């Protein structure tokens, strides 16, 4: 008989001893601990057989270095395999130590290798030597470029032209570094792409809870409700998709509203294909059902909605009691019946009822999510997330397991070594006065605002951003960028050629995901984690004992990383400290010298990340070495409903309280190392800061809104001229049938291809081979009416022009609606220069006749000779069609979000029409801009307090309070 007790004790002791050394007791592909990754103790020397040597068994030795993917926003963990013999990158796999992606990646992660070895990438700084857009470039040294740019910026600052300096960022891929650089410069020049992306969604979330992003806990949900054209197939494809599938395996129900049969929709229990723009009507019908049938969480609503404020402001004659509120609530939404929603959406009322019943079974385990899609496509789209969040708020499904959390509670942005001051300027080019409530900058209006003479740019950085291609109305961008009076110096920071870079003065090559430092944290589950992107070859060399100066020494060619670039540029702008910039980029360890990235991150990891020093010490490492070794750290998890946490007594000093229970204190705020963005509710009249809210006699932390509660009724909207939409309502879209002609159809242009990501992945050959075209989805009934079949050319006519594309006839889209992915249609100019991504850029000519532009496709893609033999194997010729150029700007008058949906006419191509042709009249696009501008409610007419914008709303690089004052009010 075996002595099982003895064996058990011996095994337990052996395991404890092994794990104390930081090693894995059950290594290798094993089901015991899902350890199907190289065990971490072998990351310095991992052996695999060389696949290229097959059938011989040749061992390759690798060093595995973690980093994070730079292709989409998820920042999934990657493990780079560095060949120890050659110190070259061989492949990328998932990083099992990353809490968000947990070792799993989508196709875009491993394709980072393609981007590193891309034969067309830009390897040296280039300076324009011909006219803008002529395609004539000369190599230039970093020193010369830095000095030239720094000198120009310094001059502008000395002359008080701070607003002529602008940094325009695409997907940041980092949390706040460059924002702080802009603040250190004292400029209000941070300009993001948010208004062509997520501003609509942000508005809906922020007005409810003071935090502008959702963090759905899909994995633990019982019912998952998505308004999505790409949510789980593009943006957050991997971390969210894997958790949705986990929930489905548990038996959770998935509801997807998507006019098009997306990848997400194919997994749904309920796929609703509504008429575009009707999503809020559907959600309000569900809300109305929950209210009518008393299926909502009444206790949660009573405790956490600002219903008292609603009653006092909207129904001053009524008794302020929850009974009164419930009566009013039912009355407010009684007209949103299933029949009403059916008429708006075209979906059967019985189906909507079934969906509502399913939602009602979720309890507090309802996870809801919308990020672009309908909220980014429709006038009033911000009400899509506002009405969606209302479902969560009705069920009390806020920050409970399986619900939706405000993202700032599931995100960690560590405090850096220095925080700069608030700039003293207000840049009207980013924050025009007509849009006081916009969520982030009106970036896509820039050419129109400059054309109107509202300002000019002396130094304009585009950073991994391609507005000519990505933004609507690209020809207006070309007009602006081509005009040196409007844009004095355009510096394109980019790892690869793009359509905007053609119109730059400098092109500065920046690193890909394996060639740069960044810190990144995203909402993937109820936890806070920090991902560390790092230049992989630099770390590998340092592990081997080399001392590396800066990242250029280990990156390909003269490719640099942005952080070192910004630090160096800042240093050169203010060499003697005269401008007050130098102090933010000076070393603490080596006074008089510039801060370097090692010191920057070392300080953060040692001082601002709770638990990291201890975790590192447990393995005998310093915090920076720990992050270089593992690439990620989970700071905390199971955060739960922060709003329910009592405010400690020491924070309650000389408190004041409003009728609705908002509590203010004189106690100083306790410092937090986490700078995740949240709103900043205002102080009371006597300067006390808001600290909590009294609920049933107890002072709880609440939400970062002015009331401290969930703002069902937004006093901010009411005060700033939008009282008609101060509660969640349905706004009829600009593509509502009543706003369209009978022969028009809705064009959905926002959906993604799961294996591409905007302009960022056209240099990835594996992805290009998978996805290289964007036909127009056309329902069979519409195809029949038009007399076209799959592959036939059609002309799509917008308000300002047209494009010619191939049809793809399918049942996977609603009749009367067409769709075309925006991930295709890349182009390079037929101007004799070879610049461009030859794997996925068509060659085009641009012809201009006054305001009329025409793009003609001269050649498609084909095989070519390069350092990569695979480029001889390119078999595809298509590169898609660039549709965004034909879209006029549609700024939502409240959120500022560009409303992407287009009312179009689809007709058979005319005899002279050619595939890929694009025609636009920019004079017409200016008229459309003016028409949408007329819908706004300006701060001049509606500001309740003489400011340009409610101070409590989130805003990148917040200026000083004085800069918030309206020009007249200032004087």
């Amino acid at each position, binding site marked *: *008989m*075996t002595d*099982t007790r003895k*064996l*058990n004790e*011996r*095994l*337990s002791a*052996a*395991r404890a001893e092994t794990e104390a050394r930081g090693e894995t*007791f*059950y*290594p*290798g*592909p*094993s*089901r*015991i*601990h*899902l350890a199907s990754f190289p065990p971490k103790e072998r990351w310095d020397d991992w052996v695999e057989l060389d696949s290229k040597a097959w059938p011989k068994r040749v061992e390759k030795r690798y060093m595995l270095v973690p980093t994070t993917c730079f292709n989409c926003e998820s920042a999934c963990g990657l493990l780079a395999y560095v060949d120890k013999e050659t110190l070259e990158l061989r492949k990328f796999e998932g990083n099992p130590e990353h809490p968000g992606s947990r070792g799993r990646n989508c196709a875009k992660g491993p394709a980072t290798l393609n981007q590193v070895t891309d034969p067309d990438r830009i390897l040296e700084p280039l300076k324009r030597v011909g006219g803008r857009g002529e395609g004539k470039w000369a190599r230039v040294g970093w020193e010369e470029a830095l000095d030239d740019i720094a000198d120009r910026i310094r001059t502008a600052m000395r002359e008080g032209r701070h607003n002529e300096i602008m940094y325009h960022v695409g997907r940041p891929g980092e949390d706040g570094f460059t924002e702080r650089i802009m603040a250190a410069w004292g400029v209000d020049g941070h300009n993001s792409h948010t208004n062509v992306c997520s501003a609509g969604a942000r508005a809906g979330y922020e007005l409810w809870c003071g935090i502008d992003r959702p963090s759905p806990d899909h*994995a633990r949900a019982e019912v998952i409700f998505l308004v999505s054209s790409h949510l789980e197939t593009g943006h957050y494809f991997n971390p969210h998709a894997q958790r949705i599938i*986990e929930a489905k*395996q*548990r*038996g959770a129900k998935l509801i997807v509203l998507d006019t098009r049969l997306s990848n997400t929709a194919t997994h749904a229990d309920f796929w609703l294909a509504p008429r575009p723009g009707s999503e809020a009507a559907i959600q309000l019908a569900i809300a109305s059902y929950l209210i009518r049938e008393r299926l909502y969480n009444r206790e949660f609503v009573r405790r956490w909605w600002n219903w008292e404020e609603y009653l006092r402001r909207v129904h001053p004659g009524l008794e302020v009691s929850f009974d009164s509120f419930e009566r009013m609530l039912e009355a407010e939404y009684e007209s949103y019946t299933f029949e009403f929603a059916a008429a708006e959406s075209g979906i059967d009322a019985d189906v909507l009822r079934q969906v509502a019943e399913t939602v009602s079974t979720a309890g507090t385990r309802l996870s809801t999510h919308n990020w672009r899609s309908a909220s980014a496509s429709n006038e009033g789209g911000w009400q899509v997330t506002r009405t969606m969040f209302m479902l969560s708020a009705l069920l009390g499904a806020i920050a409970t397991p399986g619900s939706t959390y405000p993202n700032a509670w599931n995100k960690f942005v560590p405090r850096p070594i220095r925080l700069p001051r608030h700039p003293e300027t207000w840049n009207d080019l980013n924050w025009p006065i007509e849009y006081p409530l916009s969520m982030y900058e009106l970036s896509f209006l820039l050419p129109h605002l400059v054309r109107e003479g509202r300002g000019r740019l002396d130094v304009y950085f585009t950073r991994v951003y391609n507005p000519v291609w990505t933004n609507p109305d690209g020809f207006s961008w070309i007009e602006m960028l081509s005009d040196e009076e409007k844009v004095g110096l355009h510096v394109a920071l980019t790892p690869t050629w793009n359509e905007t870079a053609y119109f730059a003065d400098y092109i500065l090559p920046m690193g890909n995901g394996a060639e740069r430092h960044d810190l990144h944290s995203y909402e993937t589950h109820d936890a806070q984690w920090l991902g560390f992107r790092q230049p992989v070859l630099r770390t590998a060399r340092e592990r081997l004992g080399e001392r590396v100066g800066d990242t250029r020494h280990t990156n390909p060619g003269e490719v640099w990383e942005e952080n070192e670039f910004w630090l160096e540029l800042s240093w050169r702008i203010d060499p003697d400290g005269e401008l007050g910039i130098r102090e933010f980029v000076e070393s603490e360890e080596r006074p008089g010298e510039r801060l370097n990235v090692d010191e920057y991150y070392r300080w953060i990891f040692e001082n601002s990340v709770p638990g990291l020093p201890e975790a590192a010490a447990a393995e005998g490492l310093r915090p920076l070495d720990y992050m270089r070794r593992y690439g990620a750290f989970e700071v905390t998890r199971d955060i739960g409903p922060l709003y329910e946490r009592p405010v400690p007594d020491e924070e309650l000093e000389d408190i004041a309280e409003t009728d609705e229970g908002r509590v203010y204190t004189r106690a100083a705020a306790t410092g937090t190392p986490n700078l995740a963005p949240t709103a900043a509710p205002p102080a009371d009249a006597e300067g006390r800061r808001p600290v909590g809210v009294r609920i049933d006699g107890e002072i709880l932390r609440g939400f970062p809104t002015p009331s401290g509660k969930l703002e069902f009724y937004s006093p901010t909207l009411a005060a700033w001229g939008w009282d008609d939409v101060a509660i969640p309502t349905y706004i009829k879209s600009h593509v509502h049938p009543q706003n369209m002609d009978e022969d028009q159809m809705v064009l959905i242009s926002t959906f993604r291809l799961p294996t591409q990501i905007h302009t960022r992945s056209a240099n990835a050959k594996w992805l290009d081979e998978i996805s290289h075209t964007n036909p127009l989805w056309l329902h069979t009934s519409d195809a029949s009416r038009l007399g076209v079949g799959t592959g036939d050319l059609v002309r799509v006519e917008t308000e300002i022009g047209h494009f010619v594309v191939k049809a793809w006839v399918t049942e996977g889209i609603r009749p009367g609606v067409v769709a075309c992915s925006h991930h295709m249609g890349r182009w390079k100019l037929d101007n004799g220069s070879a610049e461009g991504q030859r794997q996925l850029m068509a060659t085009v000519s641009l012809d201009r006749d006054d305001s009329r532009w025409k793009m003609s496709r001269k050649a498609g893609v084909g095989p070519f000779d390069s350092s990569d033999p695979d480029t001889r194997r390119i078999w595809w010729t298509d590169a898609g069609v660039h549709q965004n150029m034909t879209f006029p700007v549609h700024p939502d008058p409240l959120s500022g979000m560009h409303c992407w949906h287009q009312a179009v006419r689809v007709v058979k191509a005319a005899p002279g029409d050619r595939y890929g042709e694009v025609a636009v009249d920019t004079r017409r696009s200016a008229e459309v801009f003016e028409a949408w501008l007329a819908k706004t409610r300006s701060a001049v007419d509606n500001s309740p307090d003489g400011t340009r914008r409610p101070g409590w709303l989130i805003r990148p690089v917040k200026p000083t309070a004085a800069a918030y004052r309206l020009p007249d009010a200032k004087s």
Partner: protein
Amino acid sequence: MELMRALGALSEPPSDQTAELCRLLEIERPPAEGEYETAFLFQLYPYASVYLGAEGQIGGEARDRIAGFWRALDLVPPVAPDHLALMLGLYARLVELEESAGAERAQRGWRQARAAFFWEHLASWLPVYLIRMVEIGGRTYAAWAEILLDTLRGEVERLGPPARPPLHLREAPPFDDPRHATDEAPARAFLGQLSSPVRTGFVLVASDLHRAAAELELGLRAGERRFVLEALLSQDAAAALGWLAGFAGASTRRIERPQLEAFEPTRRFWIERCRASAALLGELAADARPASGQGAT
């Protein structure tokens, strides 16, 4: 309960850690080359559904039931929840959860889950699986099977007998008499049932069929078990069925050994199934014999 977890790890393909685990478990030597493959890939597949499923194959309702247990614990079932390594890993975790539970009520709950998993999903098939592994697993895996069997017996002592037999066994379909078959392809169904331990009560593996072919002097056609069985039956049905009846009888005696007495009432189920199979196969063999005087030509 690291012992369970380590034993589970040994049912995985050998890794660098295997030798160390063998040493810690006092197994004489790590597996020789090919020993793992012979034991687990060609003979005794380490998946519960093979032994508990009506089809004798990986997956199906038996696997779903095991996945259901994961779900009941609010865990996401893995792709193959019935793999022995995972099952022993989960059991080890349940033991740890019980031992670390602070409140008595929570502890009771975990004990209940542990006992349910043990009797429903481990003790329902592992004893008959392991006694076969002791026979044919080679030195390393025979020793491994002995340790696991002893470990399971120790658990029976701790947990006590179940209130009633496991659902897998209560709902197991019988070994149908092919003479009363209504299937469209009765021969195929019969072959399938012969490969399903939970129907027949015996665990018939590839090496058994090789032995049968040798003893009966029949041609052995290489292939999976149904294919080999079909070849044997097509050559001499009476002899093959007679051999199978004898195998069922031997299996009965194997399970009747005192070594498995602890595992009542599951042991009773397997003995009864074996006996019934032996009787049925004996009858079928008799039916298949040619009438007196008419020898095979």
